[in-house]
């Protein structure tokens, strides 16, 4: 049996590891396109602040992890999939046959359709190669514009601020992390960042990025001419001078570096002609099977089941990728395991202010909701209920025991009388959890 996995991120690596556990003798080939050992994009911000070296980003730390499990690593880009012939075309012209295939090709940052987005001063912050480029350009005192204050933008934000750059954040939404936090919480995070010296522009939009030569009163003249002579300008490999970032409001900001973090999109291009059903991502059933025989999908490329809604959507978060990778691999190896759905959840550290959101944090129709807001203390908590079951939560400035919010949501524990107590004081969530979820084994034991 030959298992082929495309994509060496968390979903792919978890799947390879799980497959080896299930099938000691099968052939396992893990294909990744980047010239690095399998690594975690989640760790890149910590590389940027030099908390870790590149090896610290690797998904598995043991030197012989792949070799000792007979997992063959292949560094190639997959260009096409032939589901009828059960084979892949690789960028070097070779082909690779499979008996069972997992597509875990992840996602790529979208490129907003903005004039000048191809300038050498514009970078995404997605790969180790991006990180190396950013480390070079984002020196103390550099002027940096970050486009996008979503989850990924905010994670990078902290790393950039710690590199002591002069940072301006431009976000289209009316608050920070608009898809993870409501108005109060998102603006609390914004205020925190402003207090820390970061310029945050919300409801703002970049309309163009002007190269040094083209910018009015900036970058022309002798230096611009010299840079042109030596191959500077739009097609140069090295950034040459400051660009001017133009906003819809008319404001102009000079920048040594522009980081584009305006969202990600599943990597589906190579599936053209494969016959595999896709929408936002690859459509999968509850066993993570795609529409093609012997092909499964996992992680940021898969439109998996959402626990809270029962809908199928791309969540693009680490815990979901790992769950997908594991469940897909079990099914590939012959088990029959259904995915109950993953909870959409995130945790974020913006310059020391920690926020998190879980499940249906925005609430449900006919549900109940309670929130507490302490703006001076930068604390916030909001709980969402359907009947007496917790279905969503978000908080700012809370770090202890926050996992119980996931526990209560995922076990759909009836809170009974504790629902009313939480409506009166939502900070008592840990007590509610102990009394309700663990009632039989802990609190109730001597009742």
């Amino acid at each position, binding site marked *: 049996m030959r298992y082929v996995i495309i994509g060496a991120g968390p979903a792919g690596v978890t799947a390879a590891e799980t497959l080896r556990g299930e099938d000691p003798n099968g052939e396992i080939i893990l294909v990744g396109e980047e010239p690095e050992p399998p690594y975690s994009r989640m760790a890149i911000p910590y590389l940027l602040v030099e*908390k870790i070296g590149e090896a610290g980003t690797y998904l598995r730390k043991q030197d012989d992890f792949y070799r000792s499990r007979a997992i063959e690593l292949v560094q190639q880009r997959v260009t096409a999939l032939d589901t009828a012939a059960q084979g892949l075309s690789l960028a070097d012209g070779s082909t690779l046959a499979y008996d069972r295939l997992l597509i875990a090709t992840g996602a790529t940052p979208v490129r907003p359709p903005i004039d000048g987005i191809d300038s050498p001063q514009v970078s995404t912050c997605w790969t180790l190669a991006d990180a190396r480029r950013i480390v070079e350009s984002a020196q103390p005192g550099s002027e940096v514009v970050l486009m996008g204050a979503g989850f990924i933008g905010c994670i990078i934000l902290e790393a950039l601020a710690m590199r002591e750059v002069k940072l301006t954040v431009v976000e289209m939404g009316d608050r920070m992390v608009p898809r993870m936090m409501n108005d109060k919480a998102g603006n609390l995070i914004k205020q925190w960042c402003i207090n820390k010296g970061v310029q945050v522009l919300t409801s703002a939009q970049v309309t163009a990025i002007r190269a040094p030569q083209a910018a009015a009163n900036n970058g022309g003249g002798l230096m611009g001419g010299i840079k042109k002579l030596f191959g500077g300008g739009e097609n140069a490999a090295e950034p040459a001078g400051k660009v001017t970032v133009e906003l819809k409001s008319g404001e102009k900001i000079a920048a040594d570096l522009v980081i584009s973090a305006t969202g990600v999109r599943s990597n589906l291009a190579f599936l053209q002609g494969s016959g595999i059903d896709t929408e936002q991502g690859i459509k999968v059933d509850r066993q993570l099977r795609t529409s093609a025989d012997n092909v499964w999908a996992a992680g940021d490329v898969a439109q998996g089941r959402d626990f809270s809604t029962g809908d199928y959507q791309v969540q693009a978060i680490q815990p979901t990728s*790992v769950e997908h990778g594991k469940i897909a691999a079990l099914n590939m190896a012959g088990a029959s395991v259904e995915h109950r759905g993953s909870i959409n959840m995130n945790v974020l550290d913006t310059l020391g202010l920690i926020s998190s959101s879980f499940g249906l944090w925005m609430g449900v129709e006919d549900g109940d909701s309670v929130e507490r807001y302490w703006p001076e203390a930068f604390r916030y908590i909001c709980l969402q209920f359907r009947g007496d079951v917790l279905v969503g939560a978000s908080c700012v400035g809370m770090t202890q025991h926050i996992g119980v919010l996931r*526990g209560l949501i995922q076990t759909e524990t009836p809170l009974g009388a504790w629902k009313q107590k939480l409506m009166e004081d939502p900070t008592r969530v840990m007590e509610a959890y102990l009394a309700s979820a663990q009632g039989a084994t802990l609190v109730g034991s001597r009742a």
Partner: protein
Amino acid sequence: MLKSLHIDPGKCTGCKQCEMACSYEHEQSFNPSLSRIKVFDFHEQGRFVPYTCTQCTEAWCLQACPVDAISANESLGAKVVSADLCVGCKVCTIACPFGTISYNPRSGVVSKCDLCDGSPKCAEACPTGAITFVDASATGLDKMRQWAQKTDTAAG
């Protein structure tokens, strides 16, 4: 023989010696807020509930970690955080459905109960026998694990 913490809330008087011992062992300071075991106070009922990691088999924290910083010490029966490898991303803190792994802003990494390498200081410090370190099969741990399984995303 695998041993695990057994907690009998009925015997807990809320003295919080366990929190002090844990904090001193791991953080070298008597600071209950840094303790990995926490005593919850149900003041309306006059009841105290010590609570910490059950070292569950699902190991949500370990599975969610993007950088391989949490490992299972099989001989100890504990899931252990490597402070050297942890980057402080906090994904484990939202993944653990028991809420027993938390971020420590002071150290920049997460912390959880590691059973003190086989001699848990909380159990040693407990004056009433509410926290004991005993043969794992006798702790009622299975009941807690049943609950843990309810949170499994794979039902099948």
